[in-house]
């Protein structure tokens, strides 16, 4: 994969040839409409937890990241 990535980055390096680089503009000329800044119901917790690899008592279950020994005095 290293060789493949090197070839791809080598290809992308052709962008350097575009010497007359302009400063980035304001993006698309078509302004997108923004969603209303209003409170709306979120995804039900049960639906979210159904897709988690592990859950308990209404929360995502993740491996311990802090052991008793690491907590110190």
């Amino acid at each position, binding site marked *: 994969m290293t060789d493949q990535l090197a070839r791809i980055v080598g290809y992308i390096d052709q962008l350097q040839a*575009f010497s007359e680089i302009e400063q980035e503009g304001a993006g698309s000329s*078509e302004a997108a409409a923004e*969603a209303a800044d209003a409170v709306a119901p979120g995804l039900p917790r049960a639906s979210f937890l159904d*897709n988690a*690899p592990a859950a308990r008592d209404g929360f*995502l279950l*993740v*491996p311990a990241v802090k052991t008793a020994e690491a907590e110190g005095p």
Partner: protein
Amino acid sequence: MSALWELSAAEISRRVRAREASAAEVLAAALARTAAVDPLVGAYLEVWADEARGRAEEIDRRIAAGEDAGPLAGVPVALKDNLSVAGHRLTCASRILEGYVAPYTATAVEKLLAAGAVPIGRANMDEFAMGSSCENSSAQLTRNPWDLERVPGGSSGGPAAAVAAGSVPLAFGSDTGGSIRQPAALSGIVGLKPTYGRVSRFGLVAFASSTDQIGPLARDVRDAALALGVIAGHDPRDATSAARPVGGYLERLEDGIRGLKIGSLREVETGGLAGANARCWRSSLELLARSGAEIVEVSVPSLAAAVAVYYVVATSEASANLARFDGVRYGRRAPGAESLAEVYVASRSEGFGPEVKRRIMLGTFALSSGYRDAYYGRARAVLTRMRRELEGVLESVDVLVTPTSPTAAFRIGERADDPLAMYLSDVYTTPASLTGLPALALPSGFDDEGLPLSLQIAGRPFDEATVLRAGRAFEREVGWRVEPAFGLRGAREAVT
């Protein structure tokens, strides 16, 4: 008389609404055809036969009660596996989403259901829509119905193969750098990438948020226009969807192209197009001219950098979008990890395939400290220049034409070890993606091996009506008709 599975979406809807055929009969024909062809083609990851039967019966009941069942009444459709349908599995053909069930339905799919469409299943794709051959699916190989030893294109290879094989008249995919148009080209069908913002992305799993767009794959331009009218429109749940008028795609579809100014890119002539593809390209221009269009040669010099720009911008966005798949919140978690960091690393290492990893690494590199300006910043700057050049050209012509793909369908495995060669399949499709323009791919002829070739027509932002009208005029002149029974070369007896 055509069998029900051979009918266009427009004709199916007409017959179902006129009670000349029932939605249940149409669905039965589609499921029978799918059962015959899909063991050969492998377009579907899952077929929802029972649910589809229930939906077809409901449409028949509504029509019997005198209700309007919608413009796609009883039309069987296939959905790419990155479109959310509540209660159904959604994997993006990736191991990392094993077991994930969509908790809500994509806006585009909601619109299809409201219009009377009958989704019959999840169609295969390149993992997370990253690929041009459908070979990057973690689930299965999908084969091109025109030649089972060749790829159907990608990333919407499953939807394209489903339509080309005659399983459904309409399918829906996503296009980030050409993922609707390129498989449509390689599979001999029509594919439309609408203007960025035309169709809500709510419920579409994000790959590169600045270019992702949902669109139809169809057997003809009329069905693509019909489908666009259904799924287009502003959606408050997608802040990038545009509050622009929708419609008019069918009304002037048959008006022809007399007097239309069509830009032919000089860069195509100098870009190394060869053989049958070059001959087909030139005859396409002649055909457009014979139809009354004025062909104008134009130039967009920065197009030479389009693939490079795309693979910086899209991978940068992908590296951020895919960070959410961490083994904690969705689907697969690697067993045996003992710390949170190990969960992340092991789950992503096991869950993502090689192409997704390659693009995450490329994007992370392009955004990393010390390289951001040289790669991402420069790509964005060249993109700005490309946008200005294209806007300038589209002030003088109504639409632009190019081939859709530099080659016809290639053999399975032929480019598997050369990702750069695969990326260069996108040379003609990435400019419209990067600049948000609408673009249509449609069949234009055959190469020397009898494989389909394709013309791409791109237009001004939100002017899909002109793009579709030009496409329909071209289609009428070419006289193309997808021939599903012919398509399964070497397997005709098995499916007819």
